[in-house]
């Protein structure tokens, strides 16, 4: 058990032991969420700010519920309500939040590195809830938590990540986490969205979906991020669905007990055939449930971690 970090900024800098600490801690928080009284006083009297400078509903709601189940007070501060419209800088806004005596700031920002920037000058704990196309650490943690819960161990599993890898912070964080825990990672999608440069992260890259799915224990489907593409990276949605959409025939290439994952929101009929999304191999809703346990663990650990160093 090891955790001495004040912030959770990315997966890249975490050790396998730190990843395991978060997953083990989350397992105990999952039990809390399953009982009648779903709340513990661990962060009683602490203030968490959800500082979302990019639209998000599910991650924000998940952090909100996580903080509440730890008895922290949480306020939401989002773009439409913020002073950015009035020209305030990120630094000044963050300092203002800190002046409210926030203990933990959960930040979602369109610029990669924004959480790291804040962590340099804030006294509060900073948790990255997604920064541009860089990382989305808590999503990767809940993904590996779900895989570990279903498969027992991550090491040696074949995990295929399918879709828009280039613009996906979920893919980057997942690749780091899975590689550190010993999984074999295969990436697949249109060549414009899955550059070979990802091989440097220890992944296999293929543009043949059948090849990518053969022998897979886990298939993680990513949404096409229209909002991050400056120009169209592939001819049409129809062609994408035909070449890279997961359907029953293609799923037969994977192992019979392969898990289907999706971080949401999903486009039925594009990256996944609708009945597969509702089928017994899909763990998409369990990912949502596990997200709360994992985020509770992260808030708990970053908050306690600094005292542990003293």
């Amino acid at each position, binding site marked *: 058990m090891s955790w001495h970090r004040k912030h959770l900024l990315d997966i890249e800098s975490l050790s396998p032991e730190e990843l395991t600490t978060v997953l083990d801690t989350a397992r105990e928080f999952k039990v809390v969420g399953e009982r009648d009284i779903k709340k513990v006083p661990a962060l009683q009297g602490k203030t968490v700010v959800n500082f979302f400078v990019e639209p998000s509903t599910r991650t924000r709601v998940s952090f909100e519920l996580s903080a509440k189940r730890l008895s922290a007070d949480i306020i939401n501060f989002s773009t439409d309500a913020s002073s950015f419209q009035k020209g305030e800088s990120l630094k000044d806004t963050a300092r203002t939040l800190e002046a409210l005596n926030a203990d933990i700031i959960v930040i979602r920002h369109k610029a990669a590195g924004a959480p790291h920037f804040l962590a340099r000058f804030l006294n509060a704990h900073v948790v990255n809830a997604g920064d541009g196309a860089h990382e989305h650490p808590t999503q990767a943690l809940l993904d590996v938590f779900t895989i570990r819960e279903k498969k027992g161990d991550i090491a040696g599993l074949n995990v295929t990540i399918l879709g828009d890898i280039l613009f996906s912070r979920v893919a980057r964080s997942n690749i780091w986490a899975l590689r550190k825990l010993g999984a074999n990672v295969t990436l697949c999608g249109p060549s414009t969205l899955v550059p070979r440069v990802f091989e440097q992260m220890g992944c296999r890259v293929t543009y043949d979906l059948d090849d990518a799915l053969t022998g897979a224990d886990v298939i993680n489907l990513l949404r096409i991020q229209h909002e991050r593409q400056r120009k169209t990276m592939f001819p049409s949605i129809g062609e994408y669905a035909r070449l890279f959409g997961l359907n029953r025939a293609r799923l037969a290439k994977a192992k019979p007990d392969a898990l289907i994952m999706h971080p949401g929101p999903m486009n039925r009929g594009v990256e996944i055939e609708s009945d597969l999304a509702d089928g017994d191999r899909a763990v998409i809703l369990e990912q949502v449930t596990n997200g709360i346990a994992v985020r509770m663990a992260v808030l708990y650990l970053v908050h306690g971690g600094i*005292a542990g160093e003293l």
Partner: protein
Amino acid sequence: MPEQNKPTVLEADALARAWRRVAHEIAEAHAEPGAIILVGIQRGGVALALQLGETLGGIYRQTVAVGSVEPGLHRDDLSQRGMAELRPTELPGDLANKVVVLIDDVLSTGRTVRASIDAVMAFGRPQYIRLAVLIDRGHRELPIRPDFVGKNLPTHPDEHVEVRTDNSGAPIAVTIKK
């Protein structure tokens, strides 16, 4: 085996007799074995609870329920001590009309017991919560008093008291370290 600067103050024999007496005292105070749940406080109390459950089962001639409780999330000193490593809380779903006997190896400030009581209450409302400890070393900071005590051990606040158990959870040595 006694280590350097870690003198053994209580040996296996004395501990076994004391812990067996505690089992008899619990049986005397609570005649209804079906209502009793021995709940070990993570982590030092868990092995002791299992072992006490064996002894108590022999006295009652009936199996006694044993569980565990993790006090970490209910501590009042998280910001001073840092986070606790979380271990499983295993309690039966319905605690109504039950007698929860919290078990710990060493009782000192009482803060762990306070947190454990809250953790049990988050699961349900037992009719009674009792406290049994192998060692009471004093230095209480809260108004908490054990119902069943193996040994009272006067100590200095700076000393560290450690209970070692064997594989069955039986206490085999108590050491004091400066």
